């Protein structure tokens, strides 16, 4: 009864990590089953348990990272959703904030509203920004609107009224009226899901929740049933975008919280690993086939944002120019994503410059050298040419590579047009991909006033450790951490988070004028809600923890900064000071004569498990069924200064704590790590590798 299982679903593979009570870890990749992902999970898990002779009741807990919520939005497979809103505001959801995510773009098309205009109906009522009723809810008209909506066949209903963040009474009354008529229909109201100011953002959030609720709920029910069929009664938890886990029932009710489930797990894993290695400041870099993602861990904690733009695509500018996707106002680990990965296509633009991505060869047809029909050169093809990636076959896979085909594509498509040699062209592609991916790292560091040079870089995802050193060099980063099981690290990260629930409420008032007792009440009310949620997931009062936060800004500022709120009594002065310090750190100045506004209060309710989530020691059982090509050498091109040299290919266990001088290549079941000349790698706790980048060059 001690195995904990992390399950991370990707488009091609489902990664699973099993960990026993002593930190013994076993990793496995099984093919995903997109028709019904729960089938692939259940079958893969059953096979693994059988192979390792673990009884089903030996599983203590399963934690799952899933893309089912994201995919329901991206593929428009959610419920037909009806929306009830205030008279005069039928089109808030469709007007959005008007903004386009890319300048000058005549071809950009606004994503269609998730509730069609025909399914958005108005009710006469009005509440003002202080929560006072200006116009009473017209129940007769509301009843007629609800009847019309239900008769039209909507599969879920969202309710979002103007200023409901200040007073949810009208929303609650409408909800009662809907329930009286259709008790089983999925129903979400904005004052419960997100009592925050700004009507488009709140409406979009509640509509997205209603839209994906039936799909996510059905999937999670089936997964639970499939697990029941394996005779495991172990609790199933779902990873949230915020970095906490939540019980499966909570996830079914508020699926907006699990949208960035998988990427969040990798960051959580990196934070725990960093703590284990005694590093406080780490940038994480997760490179897959289509995108690269970056996040920041500072003082041991990852950064969170208060919103996601789902489906905004893989456009860096989306961080600045919102509006590309569907706004969801929930806490999420701040992860920047760019459209560059191993499968990114390479092209020469009209000005004669080399460009990489955002178009990707994806899993099908894949890079040219995979010989599965791909014709356009990709970043992976360049890495094959360089010798960074095994030119004969995919490590850990059955697939044989056709490196010559990849070489030919790069020669024809890049080297010849630019008048460069083959190695030079491949090196160029590798560097241009790094430049694109560095934007994600800069977005979470220097754009936020943090100097990337004082951070260690934790790299994972199948391609991360291939690019780690060259990327680190381009940002003057001196230390790289390659986690254990780097290629399936997100699945490992799933095993670490505690259960968390986040709750928020807008106050929007001057901090000085805020009544301390009222403030304390507001936190108390949020904590009562949090306590209720944790109780329903079986946590005893002694296992509960609450953290208080406040969003503050100088009056008129757009971006409120979130600061922790501690202590009892009148905490306003302390809040003002933490805010001013944070403002100075982020934006370079504080302004003590200005009015500080208290925008939102937030709490995190945390349920601690009985046993520690993070093991003291961690030992990966190496896969023996697919051997890496250790013991060989191959020629690798390290750029014009070094040229092409023969380097040994080794396994991770050939590196000691004393370290080993580059150059060499570490091949493993799930990833490849490139350590160029001038760098040194050593084994660290948990089986991580720490690479010192150019230690001889010094500062």
């Amino acid at each position: 009864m001690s195995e904990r299982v992390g399950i991370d679903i990707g488009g091609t593979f489902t990664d699973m990590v099993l960990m026993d009570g002593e930190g013994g870890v076993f990793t496995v990749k099984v093919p995903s089953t997109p028709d019904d992902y729960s089938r692939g999970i259940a079958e893969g898990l059953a096979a693994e348990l059988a192979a390792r002779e673990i009884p089903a009741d030996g599983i203590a807990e399963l934690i799952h990272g899933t893309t089912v919520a994201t995919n329901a939005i991206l593929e428009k497979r959610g419920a037909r959703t009806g929306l009830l809103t205030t008279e005069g505001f039928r089109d808030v959801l469709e007007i959005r904030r008007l903004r386009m995510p890319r300048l000058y773009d005549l071809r950009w098309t606004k994503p269609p509203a998730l509730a069609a205009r025909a399914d958005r109906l108005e009710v006469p009522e009005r509440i003002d920004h202080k929560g006072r009723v200006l116009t009473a809810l017209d129940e007769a008209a509301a009843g007629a609107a609800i009847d019309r909506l239900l008769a039209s066949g909507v599969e879920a209903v969202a309710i979002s009224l103007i200023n409901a963040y200040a007073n949810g009474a009208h929303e609650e009354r409408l909800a009662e009226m809907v329930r009286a008529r259709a008790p089983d229909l999925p129903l979400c109201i904005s004052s419960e899901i997100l009592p925050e100011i700004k009507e488009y953002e709140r409406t979009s959030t509640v509509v997205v929740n209603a839209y994906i609720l039936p799909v996510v709920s059905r999937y999670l029910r089936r997964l639970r049933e499939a697990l029941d069929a394996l005779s495991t009664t172990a609790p199933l938890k779902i990873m949230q975008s915020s970095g906490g886990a939540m019980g499966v029932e909570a996830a079914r009710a508020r699926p907006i919280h699990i949208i960035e489930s998988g990427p969040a797990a990798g960051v959580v894993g990196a934070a725990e690993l960093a703590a284990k290695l005694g590093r406080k400041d780490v940038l994480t870099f997760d490179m897959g086939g289509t995108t690269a993602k970056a996040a920041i861990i500072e003082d041991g904690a990852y950064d969170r944002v208060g919103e996601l733009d789902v489906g905004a695509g893989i456009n860096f500018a989306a961080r600045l120019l919102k509006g590309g996707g569907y706004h969801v106002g929930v806490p999420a680990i701040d992860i920047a994503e760019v459209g560059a990965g191993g499968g990114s296509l390479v092209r020469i633009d009209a000005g004669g410059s080399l460009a990489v991505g955002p178009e990707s060869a994806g899993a099908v047809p894949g890079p040219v050298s995979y010989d599965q029909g791909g014709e356009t050169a990709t970043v992976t093809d360049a890495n094959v040419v360089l010798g960074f990636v095994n030119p004969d076959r995919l490590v850990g896979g059955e697939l044989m590579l056709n490196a010559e085909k990849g070489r030919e594509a790069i020669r024809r498509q890049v080297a010849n047009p630019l008048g460069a040699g083959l190695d030079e062209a491949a090196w160029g592609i590798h560097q241009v991909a790094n430049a694109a991916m560095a934007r994600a790292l800069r977005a979470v560091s220097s754009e936020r006033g943090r100097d990337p040079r004082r951070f260690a870089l934790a790299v994972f995802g199948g391609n991360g450790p291939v690019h780690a050193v060259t990327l680190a060099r381009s940002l003057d980063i001196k230390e790289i951490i390659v986690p254990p099981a780097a290629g399936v690290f997100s699945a490992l990260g799933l095993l670490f988070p505690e259960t968390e629930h986040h709750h928020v409420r807008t106050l929007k008032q001057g901090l000085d004028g805020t009544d301390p007792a009222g403030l304390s009440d507001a936190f108390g009310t949020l904590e009562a809600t949090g306590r209720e949620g944790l109780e329903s997931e079986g946590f005893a009062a002694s296992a509960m923890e609450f953290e208080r936060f406040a969003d503050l800004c100088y009056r008129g500022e757009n971006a409120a900064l979130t600061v922790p709120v501690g202590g009892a009594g009148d905490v306003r002065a302390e809040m003002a000071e933490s805010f001013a310090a944070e403002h100075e750190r982020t934006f370079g100045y504080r302004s003590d004569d200005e009015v500080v506004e208290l925008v939102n209060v937030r709490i995190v309710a945390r349920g601690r498990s009985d046993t520690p989530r993070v093991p003291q020691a961690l030992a990966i059982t190496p896969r023996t069924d697919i051997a890496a090509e250790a013991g060989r050498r191959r020629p690798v091109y390290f750029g014009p200064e070094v040229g092409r040299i023969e380097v040994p290919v080794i396994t991770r266990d050939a590196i000691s704590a004393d370290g080993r001088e580059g150059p060499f290549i570490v091949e493993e079941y799930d990833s490849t790590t490139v350590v160029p000349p001038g760098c040194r790698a050593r084994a660290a706790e948990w089986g991580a590798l720490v690479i010192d980048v150019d230690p001889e060059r010094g500062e």
Partner: protein
Amino acid sequence: MAEQFDLADPRAGRARDPFTLEVVKNALASIADEMAATIQRTARSFVVKEALDYSTALFDGTGRLIAQGTCLPLHMGAMPHAILAMQNHFGDDMRPGDIYVSNDPWDGSTHLPDVVCVKPIFLAGKLVGFAAALAHQTDIGGRVAGGNASDSTEIYQEGLRLPPIRLYENGEPCETVFRIIARNVRVPETVVGDIRSEVSACMIGERQLLDLIDRHGLDEFEALCTELLDYTERFTRAEVAKLPDGVYRFTDYIDDDGIDPDRITFQVAITVAGEEMVIDFAGTSPQVRGAINSVYPFTASAAWACVRAILDLDIPNNAGFFRPIKVVTPPRSIVDCAPPSPVAARGLAGFRIADTVMGALAQIRPDMVPASGGNSPDAGVSLGGYDETGKPFVYLEFLVGSWGGGPWRDGMDACTGIIVNYANTPAELVESEQPLIVERYEYIADSAGTGEWRGGLALERHLRFTGKEGIIQVRSDRRKVAPYGLEGGSDGQPSNVTITRASGADEQMPSKFLTTIREGDVIRLRLASGGGHGDPLARPPAAVLADVVDEKITPAFAAEAYGVVLTGSPPTVDATATKLQRGAIRGRTSSGPYS
């Protein structure tokens, strides 16, 4: 005036390795975006933080634009003008720790509310670059709150006018300047806060640019900048060369300047010859008495922004882009006005310049350019007054409508245009910070220009004033001359503004006005809709049905404008009746607009 603004650089670029060039190109763009993100997060005013009416840019040591943040397209060509002004004024007297400021429309800015800050960047005593930021201030003093009135008749009425002066010296703020600014504007916290956010952006730009130079070495960096501009020029020329040679003309109008009743003409002839383009505004009306005149850099900016939209979007934002595209303007015209012309509401001229240029570009790229829309912020509203404690308030918002239709899709309902990237202001924010209640913000059914591809719907926004008394100023247009349709699509519907007084009396307002409002008065703004594209009778009946189901058009309008007859509930298309109805409309209009 156009000739003096030629940014072409005669120095031939060295052929450098394309990989390093790509890396530096991305790094520069990323720095400019970091500057932009800084402003967005720290600015105080709606117009900056929500409407994104600001820009950031980087220049090399000689003053050539090397990168611009993804901000307001209309500022793109205007930023080099700001550097030029600072170079003219300070020349060799630029020192480390300086930041310069200006808002003079003929000397660094393009109207008084746009306060531009420029920081020279030094490395070991050598000037190696500039970081610049420009942001539209919510108020700049003058006759009318909001700094955007269209009814001033000389620049001196429009507010505080700062020539290029030092805002920072030796890294210290020049308190005198800050005090003068704070004393001259109605909402000093907001304005000074926004200017501070510009300063923060310049500081961040400086730090990042120096890091980049440090990585590559100064000589290499300077050579790379030259190559980057040459590369951009080559890219632009290759793109222009793909366009068919010829002269393409178009004319559009502004209703009036709010003072004289006459229609104002915007005329353009675009000549495409090989890999170069000339955009000539000969025939455009002389400068007008009202404050909607545009200075040359603003006109050129609007024209360049439109051309960018029909070329490859990967062309970098730098001076190389301007070289093959010349903008020529008649002196003392509404597109190249001379002092002391009033210019506060010159945004309107900019939007119409863009509409006119797009009309000509539609002939060059008929597969790409839609009909005209209401998606330029044609209605600007500013409201000012004093609350019960005597504290001034200023509300400033630019309202954006919908796109014109075609040539391959319907005009997007409610979306910002390509020359601005304005957002709206949430009703809940307006209500929590201003003496206003937003009573309505939605589409108007049956309002879109008709066509095979219909225009976007008109939007309306109703504001109830809850203060005691205020002065409201509206600068709108597209009342007499609606957004144009193309290829047989109808024009959009015109805009309108009425005020329902607390007494219940309705007042029809002109497109541009200034009036006193009192508690309980409701201002009803209706924006113009988008023009249609192609023959409305060729619109697929299924598309007409979908609009009826969504209540974007009524069944009666479907029958009358599109000849599509619907039947039953839920409605379906009656194919036979539709055929008959379309035949009847063709007969009726055989000498009409669709013939």
